[in-house]
């Protein structure tokens, strides 16, 4: 999927224009409008439920961006991304709970933002550790090593050891008021929403800027053919590990962000299911585009909410259905991945691209 075609009569005259953020004034206006809708209209009019759905979408986007980077742009298939999200979440939680922050940092609310950065870096390094085999293996074998990352990190290290720190038992609960950004205590869906917005925009900017630089071109070259990439003088191992680092970094941000929405975190929040879910999200959204991660997240979260609404009335008749909802969710998720792969292998982003092209060239497509 290349970039969108320009409207009739507009031509690029230099490379800088080709790589510009906003290709035309119309796109710029559109994005500003989107930003206004996201930052003003939704918080003003949405109720708490809608905001919590938005937060769910934001968390999924943050998780899926890293997966999109690894699978869609660097070609390194990963089935263990939840491990890195978990590392981020636990690092941030432990830093908040155990680290002796100077009182002034806590008062001014710097502690939590600071812990997000540290969590992101730790998760990135952890991700590089499990990305190391990618220097030697690829394809299916790499999938297995990332699966190993999931089982080793979440089911073993975090469940058995990290959870023991401080003697709190399995779940780490965060006392209210500990999560504080600047003067604001993050305690309502609205505040979580704004934090989500800032982080998602920040991560998307990181991704887009990386992808239009030398680094991103190297990643895409490795994805398309790693041997020819090496022949062209790209340090394949270095760039693969860099991709793992950035993916882990964004995953760490996702995890550290999500603790603000959870009263307590436990290893059950980061199961293998969640790793697969994220891969499913980018497949449904479209592999190899940032739109893909965003559309896929919106689609999956919304479909699951709709499914819940559909099941609830039936639950009055069959009470067993309520208990079985988790299983229905799994089955629907599996089936929808299969269907998308079979009938819509390019994902939702491809359809969006077609729609945009149609209207860019509308009414005459020449």
């Amino acid at each position, binding site marked *: 999927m290349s970039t969108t075609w320009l409207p009739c009569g507009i031509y690029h005259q230099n490379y800088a224009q080709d790589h510009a953020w906003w290709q035309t004034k119309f796109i710029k206006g559109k994005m500003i409008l989107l930003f206004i809708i996201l930052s003003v209209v939704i918080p003003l009019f949405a109720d708490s439920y809608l905001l919590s759905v938005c937060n769910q979408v934001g968390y999924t986007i943050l998780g899926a961006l890293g997966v999109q980077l690894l699978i869609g742009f660097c070609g390194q298939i990963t089935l263990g991304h939840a491990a890195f999200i978990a590392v981020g979440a636990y690092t941030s939680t432990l830093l908040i709970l155990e680290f002796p922050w100077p009182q002034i940092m806590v008062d001014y609310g710097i502690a939590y933002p600071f812990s997000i950065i540290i969590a992101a870096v730790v998760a990135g390094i952890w991700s590089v550790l499990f990305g190391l085999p990618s220097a*030697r293996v690829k394809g*299916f074998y790499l999938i297995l090593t990332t699966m190993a990352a999931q089982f080793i990190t979440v089911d073993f290290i975090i469940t058995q050891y990290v959870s023991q720190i401080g003697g709190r038992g399995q779940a780490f609960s965060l006392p209210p008021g500990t999560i504080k950004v600047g003067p604001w205590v993050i305690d309502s869906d609205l505040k979580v929403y704004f934090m989500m917005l800032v982080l998602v925009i920040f991560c998307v900017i990181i991704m887009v800027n990386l992808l239009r630089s030398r680094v991103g071109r190297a990643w895409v070259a490795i994805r398309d053919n790693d041997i020819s990439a090496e022949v062209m003088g790209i340090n394949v191992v270095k760039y693969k590990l860099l991709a793992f680092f950035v993916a882990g970094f964004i995953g760490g941000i996702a995890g550290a962000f999500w603790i603000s929405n959870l009263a307590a975190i436990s290893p059950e929040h980061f199961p293998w299911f969640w790793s697969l879910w994220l891969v499913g999200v980018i497949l449904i959204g479209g592999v190899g585009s940032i739109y893909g991660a965003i559309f896929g997240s919106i689609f999956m979260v919304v479909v699951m909410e709709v499914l819940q609404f559909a099941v609830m009335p039936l639950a009055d008749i069959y009470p067993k259905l309520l208990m079985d909802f988790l299983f229905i969710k799994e089955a629907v998720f*599996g089936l929808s991945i299969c269907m998308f792969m079979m009938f819509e292998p390019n994902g939702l982003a491809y359809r969006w691209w077609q729609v945009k092209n149609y209207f860019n060239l509308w009414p005459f497509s020449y």
Partner: protein
Amino acid sequence: MELFLMTITTGIMVGGIYALVALGWVLIYKCSGVLNLAMGEMTLIGAYVSLSFYSMGIPFLLALLFSLIIGLVLGILTERIFLDKLIGEPVLTVIMVTVGLSFFFKGMVELIWGTDTRVFTPPVFSIEPIHIGPVIVGQAYLWSFVAAIILLIIFVCFFKYTRWGLAMQATADDEMAALSIGVSARFVYAAAWAIAFMAAGVGGTLLGNINGLNISVGYLGLLVLPAVVLGGLNSVPGAIVGGITIGILQNLAGAYLDKYFPGGIKEIAPFAFMAIFLLFKPHGLWGWERIERV
């Protein structure tokens, strides 16, 4: 020393079952090039089907036979409905379809049979352990091992001596050549899935006999992945050796490392071992080393 011998024996016995399931996996990969991540759920389905028949009062062997037949039908259906349309698609697409299938199967199994642990009642194998020299082995382990070995031999004979088996070998070796001499590739794919489903079902039934049956048996089915990686993805002897090695390794880790790393070391050890093993032998023991050119 006695502990060591016993661990090894149990490991080999369980490993026999893994080898059986791993054989099914390798078969699908060899014949159709599909990397199947739904193997764990396939073991679950087979196990639950035979358990249902068994609790209806049907003799165990007959129940196993029924589950084989249902496995056959389901295998062919799965191949025809889902995988048939994906021939020639990228690897990730096919893998993710199998992941989707695994979710679908798992959800269905949980919907139909619930998540409680169920056991084969009355027990199929008597709980009286057997003494072989200094080693004590549970009967369930022993008979499972025997059954797995018998099935392995049947499968290997099937590939070596029957017309269908030879057709499958030919397709695995060179699809184009096989097509040109009149082997139907679609038939071979369906047969591979059917056999894999049946092997997984038997493996699941045997595993369910040892520890009782719940969703975690599906996780045991996932252990075939380290096994096939160890042996090399497209090697049948590799799958058998890999399965038995993983069985031994798992039990050794459970016996000796549990003191130092309490908790789930038994489940993690095969995966950790696999990750390290891949660093040194990226193609497994007998896997084909694909030479890539630009």
